[in-house]
Structure formats: C-alpha cells, structure tokens
C-alpha cells in the first residue's frame, strides 16, 4: 500500500515530474516556486532516471530550451511565477503555433508588475485567453491540493502529447508553499524514442533518416492562405479539446440555491464557506473548474436554470467571472468577490459577501 508523506506543493510537483518520466526541466528561480528547481537539483534526477535539469540564464532562455527539447519529442517542462510567465509568453506562443507539447507551471503571485511574492490568481486571463500573441489556447489545469500538484504533472504530459499542445498547471503561492499529505505516484520509465514515435507519431526533430521526409518545427508560414489553414487546424483541435477534456468538481451542488465557482486556493476556502452557510440554513454549493481552459461552461449553463445566483470567488479583481457570465447567459445573477495584491479572503468574509451581493439585494 502506498504511504502518505508530508510535502510542500512545489516539491511534490518536482518529485512527481521525476516519477512521471520527464526528460528535462529548464527553469529560472523566482519566488514563490524556486523550490521546484532547488528540489530537482538536490535530487539529481540525471542519476535516478536520466532526466536533465538545467538552470537557464533567464525565463526567455528557459522557455526556448523547452521549445528545443520539446520539439525533439521529449517530455519537457518548466516552472515559474507570474512575472516569469510574462517573459515566457513569447516562447509559449511559438510552441502553441508550432504544436510542441510541454508542461509550463505557473505558481501565481499577486501583480501587476513585480507585484508581490504572496499568492494571487490574477493570471487567469493570461493563462486562459492567450498571454502571448496570436489565436492559441493552452490546456490549463488548476490544482487545489498538494496531491493535485503531484497528480497533474503526468496528466498534463498526457494531454499535451495527445493534442500536441502546451499544457499549463496554474497553481498559486499558497498551494506551492504549503505542506500537505500526498501520495506520490509510482516511478515511470522515461520513454524511448521508438516508444514516443509509436505513441505520438513521427513528427519531432530526431534526425532525418532515409525512411521519412525531414521534420520541420516552425510556426511560420509567409503565405496567408496556408497560415489560415494552419490556424483553422488549431481551432479544430481546440474544439476537440473542449469536447473531450473539460474537468470540474461539484461539491454540494445537488440542492444548492447559490453556487460559488472557484479554483485553486479559493476553492478550498469555499468548502469552508459551504459549511458556514449551511449551518445558517443557506444551501450553498461549489463548482470547482479543474480545467480553466477548457472552461466547464455546460454545467454552469445547466445550473443557471436551477439556482438563485452564482458567486465567483477569485484572488483577483474579477477574471473568471467573465467566463461564468458567458456560461450563465443572463439566466441568473452572477457576482464576484475577490481580494488582490497577495491577500487571501477568510471564509466568513466570503460568506458575508455572498449574502450581501446575492441575497440581501434580491
């Protein structure tokens, strides 16, 4: 039987990366996620599995190392926090355009600018609506426990390779820094080149052999007719991901009159809010998007017919609330409550906001 151990979110994720059979990690230190590269350097995965770990000279270099190694068909990842992800956004756009699978982890802190080193969720727009230039999407997973920090590594790689698309784990400083019980996954073997080709096709730059045409990894096509065809292909792929990979969790939604929608650290707070509300006779529920993109639009649309209102709880000025509004289609009141700048709301404060915004006003 597997044994539970106590671990920091960042470290559990780093260990899970080794155990997922990742081929390489390229990173650059930034608070509050520096434990990821520190843990990997300390563990020397080169000796354990052959996994490469390299500290780059900048986030720009790190993401482009991911580009190079990822375009070789390898399981490659990087991690950073908000300002660093802004720097990486150029490379992320290139990888989306070139269809290079990889894993990018953002352990969010409050912004804008250098902002703060305390937790935030203000990169929701950046993660789900672009961040870099061009029409592209990332597969975005939002862990709310240390266990999910560990579990989402392998899941992200699987999704990234299935669709040849970058995947992102959008965590925050609280989940990254806190220690919690975690069951670590079993060690998987790193995939051989032959296995990668068998599983995912022969698209990567592995060296042109006589039995195939050369493989070119590029996002460029100077002919607009062909670039449009490429864009249509990407959009069709995104549609397929929306249809197949939307993930969410419902807590006490079956009889709820008011549904809170929250992810990551905010979703944990909302579980307490449900308890506090129900003690007062308020039927509260929580819908927790696990994939922020694709966003769980359908369950929200369905609940909009049944409930008296939604409260979006986020550690930002109101970003995911826009997607909830789109899903609700005006059929129920939608409000937002959020703290910013690294502040985390208390459950009683969220409950009070819910009562004021959704119940007193009705």
């Amino acid at each position: 039987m597997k044994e539970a151990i106590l671990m920091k979110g960042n470290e559990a994720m780093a260990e899970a990366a080794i155990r997922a059979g990742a081929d390489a990690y390229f990173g650059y230190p930034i608070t509050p996620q520096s434990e990821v590269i520190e843990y990997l350097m300390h563990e020397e995965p080169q000796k354990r599995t052959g996994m490469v770990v390299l500290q780059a000279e900048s986030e720009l270099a790190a993401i482009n190392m991911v580009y190079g190694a990822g375009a070789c068909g390898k399981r490659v990842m990087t991690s950073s926090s908000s300002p660093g992800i802004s720097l990486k956004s150029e490379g992320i756009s290139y990888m989306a355009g070139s269809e290079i699978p990889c894993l990018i982890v953002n352990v969010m802190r409050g912004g804008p600018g250098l902002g703060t080193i305390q937790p935030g969720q203000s990169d929701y727009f950046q993660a789900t609506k672009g961040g870099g230039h061009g029409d592209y999407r990332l597969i975005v997973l939002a862990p709310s426990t240390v266990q999910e920090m560990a579990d989402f590594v392998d899941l992200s790689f699987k999704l990234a390779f299935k669709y040849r698309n970058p995947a992102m784990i959008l965590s925050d400083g609280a989940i990254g820094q806190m220690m919690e019980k975690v069951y670590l996954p079993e060690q998987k073997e790193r995939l051989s080149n032959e296995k990668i080709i068998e599983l995912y096709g022969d698209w990567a730059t592995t060296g042109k052999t006589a039995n195939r045409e050369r493989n070119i990894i590029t996002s460029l096509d100077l002919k607009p007719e062909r670039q449009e065809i490429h864009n249509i292909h990407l959009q069709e792929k995104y549609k397929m991901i929306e249809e197949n990979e939307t993930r969410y969790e419902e807590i006490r939604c079956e009889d709820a009159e008011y549904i809170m929608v929250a992810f990551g650290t905010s979703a944990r707070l909302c579980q307490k809010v449900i308890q506090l509300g129900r003690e007062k006779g308020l039927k509260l529920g929580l819908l927790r998007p696990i994939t922020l993109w694709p966003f769980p639009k359908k369950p929200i649309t369905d609940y909009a017919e049944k409930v008296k209102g939604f409260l979006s709880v986020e550690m930002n000025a109101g970003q995911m609330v826009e997607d909830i509004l789109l899903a609700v289609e005006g059929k129920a009141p939608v409000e937002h409550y959020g703290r910013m700048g690294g502040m985390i709301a208390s459950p009683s404060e969220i409950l009070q906001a819910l009562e004021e915004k959704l119940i007193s006003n009705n």
Partner: protein
Amino acid sequence: MTTSVLTPEEIIKKGKVVFKKTKLINDVPLSYCPGCGHGVAHRILMEVVEEMGIWEDTIGVAPVGCSVLAYDFMNIDMQQAAHGRAPAVATGIKRVYPEKYVFTYQGDGDLAAIGTAETIHACNRGENIVIIFINNGIYGMTGGQMAPTTLEGMRSSTSPYGRMVQTMGYPIKITEMVAMLPGVAYATRQAVHEAKYVRKAKNAIKKAFENQRDKKGTSIIEIVSNCNSGWKLSPVEANKWLDENMLDYFPLGDIKK
C-alpha cells in the same frame, strides 16, 4: 547548313563533372537576393554535414531574419527559433540529444542584439554546439535597418545620416567577446564573397563540427558577408565595399583555436 541542339543531359555527358550540388541542399529556389552570401554559406555548411556523413544525426536551428527559411533549403531535420533564441533552443536539443550534432544559423541582429544574452550564456556553459553567425552589418529581412554590427558612419534606414557612435553605440565585436569565455573551444571570423575565402570558411565549419564530435565545447564561426539590397549597391560593388570597409573592423582569421 545543319545545326544540332544539345539537350542539357547531353551537355552534361560531354563534359566532365567538376562540381556537384550537395544532396543536402534542396532543389527549391533560394529566397535570397542575387549576390547574397547566404547561398554559399548554406552550401558549405551542408557540404560539411554530408562529407562527415552525419546528416541523419544533425538538427539545425534557423533564426529570425533573411535565413528564417533556411529549413526550406537544408535537407535535414530543423527547428525555427524565436528572434535571438536559437542558442537556447539548441541547448534544449543538445541536452536531450547529447549524441546528435546541433547547429544554429543566425544573423547579426539575431545573435548580437536581441539574442546577446542567449549567445553569451550558451557559450559560457560551453554548450557543445556549432554557431554559424552571418555578419553583414545590417537588418536585411526588415528592409535595411541598423544592426549591432553596422559600421561607424554607415548608412541604414534607421541611421540615415550614418551610424553616430555617440548616440547609437559602437559596432559590436561579439565573436571576440565570446572568445574570452572558457566554454568556447573555437572562435573564428571568415568570409565567402570570394572563392579564396570559401575554402577556408568551409574548413572552419568542418573543424567546428569535429569539435562538437569530440565534445570540446562551443564553436562559433562568424562569416562577414554582404547585403547588396540593404547596402543599396550592386552585388559586385557590395563585395568590393565589404573588402574595403568591413574587413578592417572585422579582421578575418581565428580568434581562438
């Protein structure tokens, strides 16, 4: 009177083959201007890869700039990197494929302006890669703007009265700079605008790939080249201008070996 017209095949049959295009250059029209040095640089690079028999194990990285489409012309697996990031991309490839041969092909804006940090740090780590650096002192692709290597007084569309070093800085000698780094095994400056230089440049490229094979560290080959379109000169005048102006500031020869 009778005339006989020979087909191309018959002409080839009658003559002796003295030169053959390497199979690693594709049969597609090059996108470069007539007289541009990129064509020769591409050819000798691919000739070295063919002669060493390493084309199945070679992965190239194309830059942003005129040679962004290098992957259309070279018959090997290639990646196209964001502007300036080729040495980081090459690092990623080489770290997961230490037994493959990896090269970048970059221009002066790419390597010595926007990609300076990536260039210096790849060299400083002694990444076991080959960097081919084409220096023609101008941004060709975007239409002739000032490059980090534009000479003092040289005109471009963003230095229309000539480069004024007081406000625009000095032309950068980045090959000399990275030659100082212990990770760099070989740094040399070559040219391809005349036949006498082409053979030397090819030998330098060969030495660089041999260094990679022998895991000696980074090799950087700067090729001082022309840009007749950007310089607003005919191809012949451009080569003459290169001889008379570029080579004083960017002298040819090995900087570190």
